[in-house]
């Protein structure tokens, strides 16, 4: 099942996949043919004493050898193209699927594991395909050819060969079964090891600040030991394969000499035939050995296939609708929550992270969202973006249920400035253009200016072309946040979500930012959500949502809430004292 999913990605290379084994087959036939021609030349040439014949046949044989080389090269080329191409297509597919999984699904599968799957596992599969195409035809061909030859010499004695082959296969399957399991353990432990490594790379400052380097080394080393133990176990088992299979075939040879000896004495067979028999057994043995060597490659690939197929089989939890059926109404509220219940876990005991949220946000409103840590402010915003689907109730944007939108259409309406500014290794301009890939230079500049980022950008030696290092490491927290804001502004969103967006900004910048956003929303109807813990940031909003422990505790203006909302009063009394 999972193999068929994976092998489906070979389809574009069907032609190559037929050609490679075909040419390998021709080469194998020629390889079998050569000794026969040689035997013929020895017999006839020596008997006739015809040197010209011998030289002529010599030329023919050289031709055979050359054609063999040609076939082999074609096979190798086809196999290289097909396997590398297959790997490329598969990698793209896995990467694209990962990009479409929901936050929850990515957390479940684990980021390091996903990275390993898109890189290491696909590489393993690609290697297996290359080996398959190169060697898969040759082995059965030599095997079957050998058996037929044996049968023509002495059907009785070939029973030995025919008995040995199933035994051989049983050993292969047994070892394969066991090693598949062990390889999975090895792979899982590698994921564990990668996790620790990733944590150490991302937390390098904290680890050094807390002088925990030694302990981290111990933790990593323990994980490496576990991985080594698993690989050693797998190694001991898979090393059995070669000697065990060889032993079976050698036992067959001993049996052939013994029973052959008896038959020769009974007069049913010649010594020369016994020798020929042994040669064929050797040929079969060599062919099967190649197969058993590949078994290790294939068991690893099988494990990888499972891991890759798991990703491909994971259907994005947030399913996308193809096109918008209804027409958004210009009169509808920008966002509406009706009886929204939501929980991050699929718990059944009525514990919700958001409980019965009802709110209607008119177009063009500036909405403050306030509440304590874990009150559900960001969660509420995530539902508008449809990062998660509600358990019950409905979230509407422009009067249409968010689940009815194609995700791209929905999210293109929204500009999000998340709490944590994630930037990418590219230039500043490219980072801002994330919000709108076709934005003109002027648009990028305007967005940067509105986000109060222009000044520091222009201080950079390369201005907008200055490189942002991975994760924005060469920028300060505030600079990152301003670029993140510019990135959201450049798309000229209908809905702007500032999720605690000014936390890393100083007063002056924050105030200037708020002024420029307000100016923008006056020029064009933008609905703005300002998630904050500071009353000062949101007190002038048209509408304030007060969140507390997953409940919407109050909706209204600053003055209205001061009069009506206990939670809001509490917050204000602390902050505005």
């Amino acid at each position, binding site marked *: 099942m999972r193999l068929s999913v994976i092998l489906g990605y070979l389809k574009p290379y069907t032609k190559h996949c037929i050609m490679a084994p075909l040419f390998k087959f021709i080469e194998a036939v020629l390889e079998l043919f050569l000794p026969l021609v*040689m035997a013929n*030349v*020895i017999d006839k040439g020596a008997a006739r004493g015809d*040197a010209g014949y011998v030289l002529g046949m*010599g030329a023919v*044989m050289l031709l055979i*050898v*050359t054609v*063999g*080389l040609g076939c082999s*090269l074609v096979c*190798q*080329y086809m196999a290289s*193209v097909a396997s590398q191409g297959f790997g*490329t297509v598969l*990698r*793209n597919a896995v*990467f*694209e699927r*990962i990009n479409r999984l929901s936050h929850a699904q990515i957390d479940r599968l684990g*980021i390091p594991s*996903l*990275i390993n799957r*898109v*890189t290491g596992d696909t590489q393993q599969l690609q290697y297996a395909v290359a080996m398959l195409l190169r060697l898969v035809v040759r082995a059965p061909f030599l095997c079957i050819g050998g058996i037929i030859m044996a049968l023509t010499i002495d059907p009785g004695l070939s029973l030995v060969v025919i008995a040995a082959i199933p035994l051989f296969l049983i050993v292969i399957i047994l070892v394969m079964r066991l090693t598949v399991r062990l390889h999975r353990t090895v792979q899982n432990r590698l994921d564990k090891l990668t996790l620790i490594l*990733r*944590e*150490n790379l991302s937390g*390098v400052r904290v680890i050094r*600040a*807390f002088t925990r380097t030694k*302990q981290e*080394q111990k933790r*990593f*080393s323990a994980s490496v*030991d576990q991985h080594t133990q698993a*690989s050693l176990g797998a190694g001991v088992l898979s*090393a059995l394969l*070669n000697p065990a299979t060889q032993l079976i075939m050698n036992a067959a*040879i001993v049996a052939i*000499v013994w029973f052959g*000896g008896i038959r020769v*004495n009974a007069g049913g067979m010649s*010594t020369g035939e016994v020798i020929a028999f042994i040669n064929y057994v050797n040929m079969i043995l060599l062919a099967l050995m190649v197969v058993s060597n590949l078994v290790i490659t294939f068991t690893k690939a099988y494990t990888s296939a499972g891991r890759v197929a798991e990703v491909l089989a994971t259907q994005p939890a947030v399913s996308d609708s193809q096109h918008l059926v209804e027409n958004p109404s210009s009169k509808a509220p920008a966002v509406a929550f009706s009886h929204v219940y939501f929980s*991050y876990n699929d718990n059944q005991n009525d514990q919700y992270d958001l409980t019965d949220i009802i709110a209607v946000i008119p177009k063009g409103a500036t909405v403050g969202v306030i509440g304590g*840590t*874990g009150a559900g402010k*960001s969660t509420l915003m995530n539902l508008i973006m449809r990062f998660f689907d509600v358990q019950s109730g409905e979230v509407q944007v422009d009067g249409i249920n968010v689940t009815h939108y194609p*995700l791209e259409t929905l999210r293109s309406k*929204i500009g999000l400035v998340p709490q944590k500014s*994630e930037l990418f290794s590219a230039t500043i301009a490219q980072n801002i253009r994330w919000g709108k890939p076709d934005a003109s230079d002027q648009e990028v500049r305007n967005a940067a200016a509105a986000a109060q980022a222009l000044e520091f950008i222009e201080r950079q*030696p390369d201005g907008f072309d200055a490189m942002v*290092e*991975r994760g924005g490491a*060469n920028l300060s927290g*505030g600079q990152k946040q301003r670029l993140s804001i510019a990135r959201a502004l450049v*798309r000229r969103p209908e809905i702007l979500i500032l999720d605690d967006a000014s*936390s890393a900004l*100083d007063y002056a910048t924050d105030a*200037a930012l708020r002024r420029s956003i307000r100016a923008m929303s006056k020029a064009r109807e933008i609905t703005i959500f300002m998630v904050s813990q500071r009353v000062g940031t949101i007190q002038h909003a048209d509408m304030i949502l007060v969140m507390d422990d997953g409940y919407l505790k109050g909706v209204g203006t600053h003055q209205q809430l001061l009069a009506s909302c206990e939670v809001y009063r509490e917050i204000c009394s602390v902050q505005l004292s």
Partner: protein
Amino acid sequence: MKNSGFTRLLRSLAKYRLLIIGMLLSSAVGNTMLLLAPRHIAKAIDLIAPLNGDYSLLLQELVILGALYVSGGIFTWLSMVLANSAANRTVRDLRNQLFEKLARLPLGYFDNNPRGDMISRFTNDINAISDGLNQGVIQLVSGIITVVLSLVFMLTLNPYVTLVAVFVMPISFLIGFSITKYGKSKFKEQSRVLGQLNGYAEETISSHHTVKAFGYEKAADTRFGEINRQLYECGYRAQFASALVNPSTRFVNNIAYVLVGVLGIIAVLRNTLTVGGVAGFLTYTAQFSKPFNEITAVTMQLQLAMASARRVFGLLDEEELRQSTVSENLPGGLGLVEFKDVCFSYQPETPLIKNLNLSVRPGETIAIVGPTGAGKTTLVNLLMRFYEIDSGSILIDGEDITSLTRESLRRSFGMVLQDTWLFSGTVRDNIAYGKPKATDIEIEQAARAAHAHSFIRRLPDGYNTPITEDGGNLSQGQKQLLTIARAMLLDPPMLILDEATSSVDIVTEIRIQRAFRKLMQGKTTFIIAHRLSTIRDADRILVLNQGDVVEQGSHSELLGLGGFYSRLYQSQFAPSE
């Protein structure tokens, strides 16, 4: 430094020379037995003809044969297990060495290098080395042993035949070698692009929140597809190059086979050789060249391993931090901090901090304020010696910090960073991060003091709740509370708080500040914060702008000054409309 990858890999292997010697011995014994077997088969066959019903001699020969096969098999298995063991242990050491190296790298290295590429060195590259050592070396060794032994056997039979076979060897070796050389550059390229691809996958998958918010999935797919396409281009060429080796050497051997046959028969016609002699010739030519084919066949794996080894050793060769070896403990532990003429820049061409002078009395609370990019975080980086200053000196209790070990310096600071970093472990483990031996009571006290206790108790397993990578299952504020609890538990003589309270709601923040004030008593504290309350309570405010201390003093003093600070402060209350 040519071939350094190879010799250094050998040096890493040297530690396991006993395993390797064992591997060589058992491989030699095993192969000798398996090579002796054909001679006994020949003997047994010779015994068949004059048998006359007496099977005892034949039986005796077959028992010897059986014993050779069984013990040969056991020794072959043993040699593979030993090779596997040596390879796995060597890469375990390499992984640990790499990890320990990370601890000695300057922080700038982590900021400037893609994480995925570093992870790739730990996983893909190390795996390639392991495969190369394991399969490559074992085949190389058994191949060489087979060649040497068959050479010995051949010499005992006929020195002239041996000469012909020996003549073929260098030609096929030369071909293999030159193709290998061509493939090398391709493999290097492939390795590089693969690292790039992994880096991109890592960056995209770990920033999946932002990718989704901006509907960047398709653009990411395209970029990944581009790198993937490059990988395809150099990948299939590299693969084809290494796949050329096998057919080419086989071609040379086949030509030798034909030439030996034809020349042999001509010799028969001239009565200088018997027909049986020709048959012997041919058998040995085939047998002798077989290991050479195998050896060249493993070159692909060895090449990959070498390319990977270069990358692994490349990381190990990165320039390290200067290690100071002087005093282990801070004298006095007073907390007197002085900056004298400190200059620093991240990039030489853009100086950031110029001639900074600052003296902080023990127990003083210093609030560092200033616009974004003024150098606030940099000051902390220097104090903790995450980065080294370019000139000047930083003194703690009169000791130059470069004369202290980094560990003892950092142990005397408690730190809460802007980026909350948690590792996968339980809540308890995360709090006890700086003090692994802390008792449950101490941990709970710290959690209570940081106001984290109540939310921890609400978690499914309380303090034993596992935290997924980077705290994915906690809110930003909850993460921050945990990192604060972590610093609480440590109770160090000095504190660094880097925007530590920016994501915690104001009610909690007030409580935390109260707890901090208790903790801060008698301790030198540096706070980078944007909150008025934090700043107002500080003993001294340090106003930074573009790397310089532009003003310092208490809140009221600075307001009275009517300068930079006062403008900064006023802007918080800038008219909202």
